[in-house]
């Protein structure tokens, strides 16, 4: 058993003329949480589907849990748990029935499923809902059941496509907390997300995607240090272009996105001095995050 859980080398995928994934390479070590971060349409879901053998690449090589994909994807999938982007639970079945039906797809006997179901329900905090129909569950509960279902075969690797999209903050935090428990148990997680906060909180390493291309890869804090490396002042109100000229001498870099001006300044107090007394402005100073990295790397709304 190698120490690499997932390896992609020069993977390409197009639909017609549209390139979805362009010469993508990365590898994920066992026990690692690896994030694919990018906006909608960056190719994240396509990559997740290719890893599972549910889509064939046009070129390149994919290896998952030492199995070549897609040719032996089925063998790999026996040791993978999947949390899809859209819930595909059995709505007319109860929570418990969902686990049983899914366990049987992995060739598990009724006895084997009975042995693991209670701990999965407990893990998903759904013990009291075992005999409730899925159609009666909240969005957060459905997601937790999808997560429990993905664990039924005791997978080495979890592939999660946007696991918390559409959830309220409370439900999202609960999922994150559950995922950290899984990482502590040594599971490998591949996660796609467009939430910078999610990537920052969970991922050991991540790959930033834009239109199917990798534009950065590394540890979240290293990426932040490398690309930003100083405090950020967000300024709302006023004319951003006029403000930009005013504070340019004190900023390392400035970006305007919509009505907000992002000023990356090693010494933020210098900027603040020049904005003192401007009652029309709202000023927020904060440490840099992945959002800033993305804004910086993609060049969107950048200084013209």
């Amino acid at each position: 058993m190698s120490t690499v859980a997932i390896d992609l080398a020069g993977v390409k995928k197009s639909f017609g003329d549209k390139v979805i994934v362009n010469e993508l390479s990365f590898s994920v070590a066992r026990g690692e949480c690896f994030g694919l971060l990018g906006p909608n349409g960056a190719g994240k879901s396509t990559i997740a589907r290719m890893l599972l053998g549910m889509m064939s690449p046009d070129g390149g090589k994919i290896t998952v849990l030492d199995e070549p994909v897609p040719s032996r994807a089925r063998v790999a999938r026996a040791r993978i748990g999947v949390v899809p982007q859209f819930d595909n639970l059995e709505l007319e079945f109860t929570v418990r029935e969902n686990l049983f039906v899914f366990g049987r797809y992995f060739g598990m006997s009724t006895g084997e499923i009975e042995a693991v179901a209670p701990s999965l329900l407990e893990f998903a905090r759904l013990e009291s809902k075992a005999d409730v129909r899925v159609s009666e569950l909240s969005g957060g509960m459905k997601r937790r059941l999808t997560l429990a279902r993905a664990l039924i075969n005791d997978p080495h690797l979890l592939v999660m496509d946007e696991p918390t999209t559409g959830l309220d903050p409370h439900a999202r935090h609960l999922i994150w907390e559950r995922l950290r428990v899984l990482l502590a148990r040594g599971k490998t997680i591949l996660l796609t997300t467009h939430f910078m906060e999610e990537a920052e909180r969970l991922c050991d390493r991540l790959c930033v995607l834009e239109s199917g291309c990798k534009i950065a890869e590394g540890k979240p804090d290293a990426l932040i240090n490398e690309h930003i490396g100083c405090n950020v002042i967000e300024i709302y109100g006023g004319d951003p272009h006029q403000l930009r000229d005013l504070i340019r001498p004190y900023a390392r870099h400035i970006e305007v996105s919509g009505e907000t001006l992002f000023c990356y300044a090693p010494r933020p107090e210098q900027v603040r001095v020049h904005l003192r007394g401007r009652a029309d402005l709202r000023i927020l100073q904060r440490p840099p995050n992945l959002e800033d990295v993305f804004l910086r790397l993609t060049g969107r709304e950048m200084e013209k």
Partner: protein
Amino acid sequence: MGESYAAVMPANAYNWIAVWRRNFLAWRKGALASILGNLADPLTNLFGLGFGLGLLVGRVEGTSYIAFLAAGMVATSAMTSATFETMYAAFARMDTKRTWEAILSTQLTLGDIVLGELVWAASKAVLAGTAIGIVAATLGYASWPSILYAMPTIALTGLVFASLAMVVISLAPSYDYFAFYQTLVITPMVFLCGVVFPTSQLPGSFQHFASLLPLAHSVDLVRLAMLERGAESTAMHVGALCLYAILPFFASTALLQRRLLR
């Protein structure tokens, strides 16, 4: 292409059972309504045509018209039951309900799913066909053992029409297209294949064409069993039905691979 097609074929001889059991569990939750729904249509035809037309027609091929029709209705209800289960229910599981998507993320292959769906649809066909047979036997139009002899044919008929409908759903962009298959293929087959009248009534060229249709083989086989006739050309009928079941299975799996796993 060859390698990837091999990868979607059924992985082993038993994976499909998990898909069948999933459908069985879902069906059990609404079994009563499903059974009544399955019975209502063929029974209406049987009694409506059997008693009404039967009075005018008298005897057909040496039996009462209603006994002749009952055998045809057994095959027909197996056909419609398997066709509808695949076209509507299996299509929903593939498309709107995303059930297949969930299954494809496990160690099952597309071929396992298709096989499970076909056997499931055939199971429902057995239920529907046998139910008509039981009604016929209760009323004395067929003997009880003959229903048992007809069951393998009913099951095979279910597989054939599930398999053909699987090709339809692998190509149809939406539900709207199913009506074409129903009105242009399924309904004409009822009249061409000797369900309500003997094929000898058809013009010569139609007779040749009709004899190639899958329902014609089913009807002939069911009548052999239920009217306790000799076993003439049984092997040919069974062979034809097997081809009609197997070839569309491979075709639909390839088409579904293109549709779902491209």
